[in-house]
């Protein structure tokens, strides 16, 4: 049985594959098949852990922050593979591997309780689509953040059309997750929207990415400011995801699990 104690072995094996893939991708002038194979192997190992852990805990591993970080890394690795395959940006493996390593290390050094219990409020049809779609969108928006940072330092405009695609997909899935959450909230608590701190930070993040999309349309030549919006929006996303737990709140959050 695969339990949380095994995470370190699976995570480091996957990370090792992703580091090697990054190396081969940078070295090769063309699309590197070895890099693709190694990166896919990393994804396979990581996915194997998620499935095994899901079976072991007899509930979807989506309850704790640590479990959501599992999914973030999973989607990040898939998105980086897609970007490499379709857009052939050879630094993408390195960027996403660094970010994945950060989240994997947080999971290793700050372990949480991963028991088999799921409180009644979370036993809902909406639970899996709501959280998984959020993590999917976070991974897309995280990738756009990495590329925005790269672009800000390198001052190259060739990447820009891709930001719109990444943010648009990330923002669209963020919208889906947020509104699925609202439908679930109506079913569980009787209200679609309660201005709970988590909900409010999610709305602020969503609005900031919407501002980016509108800003790009209104001022297409103002590249640096657009990229700065992506960077700020990602900071808001971190606040919404876990930062809100460290902020003082006047009342108990409905999202505290």
């Amino acid at each position, binding site marked *: 049985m695969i339990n949380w104690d095994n995470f370190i072995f699976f995570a480091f094996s996957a990370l090792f594959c992703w580091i090697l893939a990054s190396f081969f991708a940078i070295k090769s002038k063309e699309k590197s098949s070895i890099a693709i194979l190694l990166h896919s192997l990393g994804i396979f190992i990581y996915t194997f852990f998620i499935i095994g852990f899901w079976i072991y805990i007899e509930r979807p591993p989506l309850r704790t922050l640590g479990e959501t970080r599992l999914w973030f890394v999973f989607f990040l690795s898939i998105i980086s593979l897609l970007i490499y395959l379709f857009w052939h940006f050879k630094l993408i493996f390195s960027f996403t591997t660094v970010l994945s390593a950060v989240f994997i290390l947080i999971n290793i050094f700050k372990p949480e309780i991963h028991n088999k219990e799921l409180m009644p409020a979370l036993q809902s049809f909406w639970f899996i689509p709501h959280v998984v779609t959020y993590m999917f969108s976070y991974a897309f928006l995280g990738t756009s953040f990495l590329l925005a940072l790269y672009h800000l330092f390198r001052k190259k405009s060739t990447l820009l059309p891709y930001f719109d695609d990444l943010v648009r997909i990330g923002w669209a899935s963020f919208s889906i997750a947020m*509104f699925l959450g609202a439908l679930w909230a109506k*079913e569980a608590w009787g209200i679609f929207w309660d201005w709970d701190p988590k909900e409010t930070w999610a709305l602020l993040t969503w609005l900031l990415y919407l501002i980016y999309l509108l800003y790009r349309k209104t001022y297409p030549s103002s590249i640096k400011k657009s990229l700065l919006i992506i960077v700020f929006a990602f900071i808001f996303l971190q606040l919404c995801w876990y930062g809100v737990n460290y902020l003082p709140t006047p009342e108990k959050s409905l999202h505290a699990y």
Partner: protein
Amino acid sequence: MENVSILFFPYNLIVILSIFFALFLIKNFSFTQKIWHQLASEKYLLLAVSLFFLSILLIQLIRTFVPDSTDISSFLYRFGFSRFNASPFLLLISLFLFIILTANHLSLWREPFSLQTIRLLFFQIGILLIISAQFLGFFDQERYKMTVYSEYPTSVAIKDEKLFVSMPFEIQLINSLPSYYPSGNLKNVEINYDIRYKNRLYNIKNSVNQPYNFHGYDLYLLAYDQNNGSNPLFCRLFIVKDPWKFIFKIGFITILISSLLMLIPNKERKKGAFSND
């Protein structure tokens, strides 16, 4: 905000229709064409969304960092700056966003249909419906909390956390069906109670995530007496009457459709590689 009775039905509907009518007039008179183009422009939409964002951020920061006990907090509360549902300030910004969004939306119908236009149309309709339901429909919502006992039926509920009212029905708790994890923590629970309404008795089963609709009221299980197993002495219900919930739901579904359409790549995207140098 609780006292802003001008926004109860049908006045909230009149506000919405007036905005539509005013924009229709601005759009169709030649001397107001310049104003119309300003209102419908993306620049104004960006401004309205940014103002909305900043106002929510401001209220959230006040809520987070200014403790309730301080003088400044009571001052901010008096002017409705620290609670979302009680903020005339936010209501005004939302109305501004509503006007700009409506103008932008109306102008969009003149553009040639493309995937981008269709998803924008869906998205804007969804947002307009949600703003209407959240900020104007809020005033028509009725929210009650009710403690139900097993010993005797009761019809007393607390409206909006402050006002004792008598509901048109009586509820009495019968029993519950809890299940537990091996650790002793609650896994799930089903509550069984009777409702007496117009001399008829209805037996209801209620659990978390499964509300029960009773004559326009949605009944939600909030909490129950866990110390007495399957024979609890009381349970707490949240009772909501929300006539705008269907507008909300249609708005959400419309946005979900537009979000799904957004996942389809733009045709005009040029295929190609990054510049790796």
